[in-house]
């Protein structure tokens, strides 16, 4: 892997720089480090940073830009319509990688790979042996394009190696040149470290920007193919990969909200009462056992809840409730997913509410007891009203978590998009359909795949809105007791 070698080369230049810079600084002070502005190791670190950081940054940028540039160059070779250009590009890339892998595993020699002829050899079969599955057949044009990709990638790789190592050497040389006894090495190093720290914290912003950008561009593509009114107000969800699908959001949203509602119906009373009991009634020993036990529920991965829904809760509800009552025969149902999700949310509601109830000052309780109220009257009439904004915030956060939850509904709710009131029927949610539309081989130019990005953006907007609302309520209505 040449990338590793470039990385290793830059790193060894950096290490070399460290020792050279340190030695040079000590030499410039003729061995008496008291004359130096900074400690000798700072001169070394300065040279190390100068040799590595700019070079590695350029390498990362290069790697991010390279595929796009190469695709652009190759796209000019092919006469294809705009609508499946992405697909063709992905196929070409896979073909090029397949040939590379065949060379790497020794299936064919490097020279033979360059002389491949689509007319005479069955390239698909050849590549299938080395584990590359191609979607479409290989024509001479696509083969030529793939060969061009390989050539461009190879020369780009060489160019990158040259540029990066040269930059590393240049940085090293400049840093060494600057290394004299009066050079403020510590200040330089600290500025560089601060810049790196800022870079690290900006990754959080970059992630958000990446999330929004990736979904917005694809969603716009989707709305170019499918009218947005039909998406937001459509009552039918019938995707068909031959085209002419109905992709209405409402049935999915209905399933999502219905399941969320049932989950909250379970989680809010149980969580709230558990929090009240633990904050107001439980002794220290009971609390020290019960509180962690309930919080374990929050640490269990959602796939485990999904398995629980699929194997235990679903069949149980079907056999003991739905089937005898004549309400349905499906193990996957709104009720199954809602119940299990409710269990998952208990610790969210309870531990947040617990903190909030504990934050209500003791003087309020004492005042209430002094007026003759019982403990439960104090809770109901003094503590809960005082803690209400926080509790509402906790419930909203739990709702946002329920709306975005995926594995439980994938395994427990079913896949049929339905607008129905019967909780024992299988329904589906936004997240289930995102998974459904994007798993497996997908054609990223069809509305059936792109709709997942629109669903994702909708989901992102709803959960973000709920989170912000929760924070706002907590901040706006928080009682100040001091």
């Amino acid at each position, binding site marked *: 892997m040449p990338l590793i070698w470039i990385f290793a080369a830059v790193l060894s230049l950096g290490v070399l720089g460290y020792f050279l810079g340190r030695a040079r600084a000590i030499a410039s002070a003729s061995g008496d480090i008291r004359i130096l502005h900074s400690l000798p190791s700072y001169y070394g670190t300065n040279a190390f940073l100068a040799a590595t950081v700019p070079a590695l940054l350029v390498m990362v940028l290069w790697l991010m830009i390279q595929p796009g540039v190469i695709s652009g160059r190759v796209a000019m070779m092919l006469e294809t319509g705009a609508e499946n250009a992405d697909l063709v590009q992905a196929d070409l890339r896979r073909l090029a990688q397949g040939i590379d892998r065949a060379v790497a595993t020794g299936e064919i020699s490097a020279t033979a790979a360059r002389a491949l002829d689509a007319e005479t050899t069955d390239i698909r079969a050849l590549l299938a042996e080395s584990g590359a599955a191609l979607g479409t057949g290989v024509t001479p044009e696509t083969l030529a394009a793939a060969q061009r990709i390989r050539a461009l990638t190879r020369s780009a790789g060489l160019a990158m190696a040259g540029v990066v190592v040269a930059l590393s050497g240049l940085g090293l040389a400049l840093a060494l040149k600057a290394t004299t006894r009066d050079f403020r090495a510590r200040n330089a190093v600290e500025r560089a470290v601060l810049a790196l720290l800022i870079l690290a914290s900006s990754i959080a912003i970059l992630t958000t920007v990446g999330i929004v950008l990736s979904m917005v561009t694809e969603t716009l593509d989707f709305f170019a193919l499918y009218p947005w009114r039909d998406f937001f107000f459509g009552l039918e969800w019938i995707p068909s990969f031959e085209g002419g699908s109905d992709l209405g959001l409402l049935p999915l949203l209905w399933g999502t909200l219905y399941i969320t509602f049932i989950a909250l119906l379970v989680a809010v009373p*149980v969580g709230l*009462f558990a929090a009240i009991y633990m904050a107001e*009634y439980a002794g220290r020993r009971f609390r020290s056992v019960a509180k962690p036990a309930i919080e374990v529920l929050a640490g269990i991965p959602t796939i485990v809840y999904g398995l629980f829904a699929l194997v235990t809760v679903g069949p149980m509800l079907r056999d003991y409730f739905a089937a005898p009552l004549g309400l349905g025969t499906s193990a996957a149902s709104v009720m199954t997913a809602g119940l299990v999700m409710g269990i998952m949310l*208990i*610790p969210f509601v309870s531990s947040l509410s617990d903190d909030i109830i504990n934050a209500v000052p003791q003087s309020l309780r004492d005042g209430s007891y002094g007026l003759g109220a019982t403990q439960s009257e104090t809770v109901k009439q003094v503590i809960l009203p005082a803690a209400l904004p926080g509790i509402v915030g906790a419930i909203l956060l739990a709702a946002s978590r329920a709306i975005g939850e995926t594995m439980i509904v994938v395994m427990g709710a079913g896949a049929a998009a339905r607008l129905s009131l019967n909780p024992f029927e299988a329904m589906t949610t936004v997240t289930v359909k995102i*998974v459904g539309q994007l*798993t497996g081989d997908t054609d990223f130019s069809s509305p059936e795949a792109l709709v997942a990005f629109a669903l994702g953006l909708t989901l992102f907007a709803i959960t973000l809105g709920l989170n912000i609302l929760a924070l706002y309520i907590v901040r706006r209505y928080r009682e100040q007791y001091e």
Partner: protein
Amino acid sequence: MTAAKSLLAADAHTRRRNAAETRFRAYGLAAVLVGIGALVLLLTTILGNGAGAFRQTYITIPVTLNADRLDPAGNRDPAEMATVTTFGYAPMLAQALQQHLQAQGIAMEGIGPRDLMAIISQEAPAQIRAMVLQNPDLLDRTLELEMLAGGRIDGYFKGRVTLQSAERDANVSPAQLVLAQAMADAGMIETRFNWAFLTGSDASGQRPEAAGLGVAILGSLYMMLVVLVLALPIGVAAAVYLEEFAPKNRLTDVIEVNISNLAAVPSIVFGILGLAIFINFAGLPQSAPVVGGLVLTLMTLPTIIIATRAALRAVPPSIRAAALGLGASKMQSVFHHVLPLAAPGILTGTIIGLAQALGETAPLLLIGMVAFVRDFPAAPPEGLFDPASALPVQVYNWTQRADPAFVERAAGATLVLLGLLVTMNLIAVMLRRRFERRW
């Protein structure tokens, strides 16, 4: 006016209030018990379903590896012997089983040759073929070979399949189970601990008995490696900047709001991000641990940043003041004094973040980790780009298969996952106990 009341005897109103008090208290206790009961039910059903996956039924019979059939060319060249597919081995095993049963005097009532073969796993011919190809000298010898029993036979010895359920099952007949029981009584069949479940690779839908978790465990390990290498330095650097250096201004406000929001973004959205940016835009391969690792890194960052900031805040200002007073620069005071003192808290937060990432499934579905992967990925760093599975995804994958024996495998895989999570959290708790300092 009512008559004067005794303070010692409760009147109706007081009794009502006291009853309400008792009721309220009972509701609270009931809620706590419901929570704990749900936890217990969850764990016991998973344990009940999954414990069987750690045991496996094996058949041991003497088999003569017939050279005429397995090496038609007769030159013991593995390359030529490879032309004999598993279909060449299967009849040989059936014959060996039949002969051995006859020699032992075990009756085979109502059992045809196909039924007999179904007692042995479909995986067994492949295993023996691999063994013979590796060591051609075994040919023409009679060996005591140990093979996997078929999925239903395995289920019978674990109590999952019974004589009653076999009558309704198209894949197994009661006669086969009776025969299997007779074989077990004769010592040919044994059920014991199943290492292959932890080390083997996945198997196709007809062979639940051969499916193992090896590739998934390795894939998860690779992803955790990527997360650790990326998320720990970046997260700590971001937290140090925000907590120690950042001026109070718009930009840092935006960053802080961003981080708390990222912590609440649904995990599936990160999957969409990974698919759009890392796979479609940057052209990284599907199903690769490196992509999974990158996505999980972005998800884990907020956890690590928040934990690190809390740990930094817990270091008292007097430490910083003392360092500055002795002439250290701000950067030196942070990196030489504050950060080492915050290290236990940072480590604990990192382990908890890793544990979360280990159990995450939804984003991995979108980046293609659901694909059926049998081959182990190579050693890192190249192996990070090879297709692999992940533990939680493997659980999901197995639940989607038709054979009910895969439910046992899925629950077993869940137990492995939960075991890893418990271990990680225990380490975090121990670190906290051991190094926690009250200032």
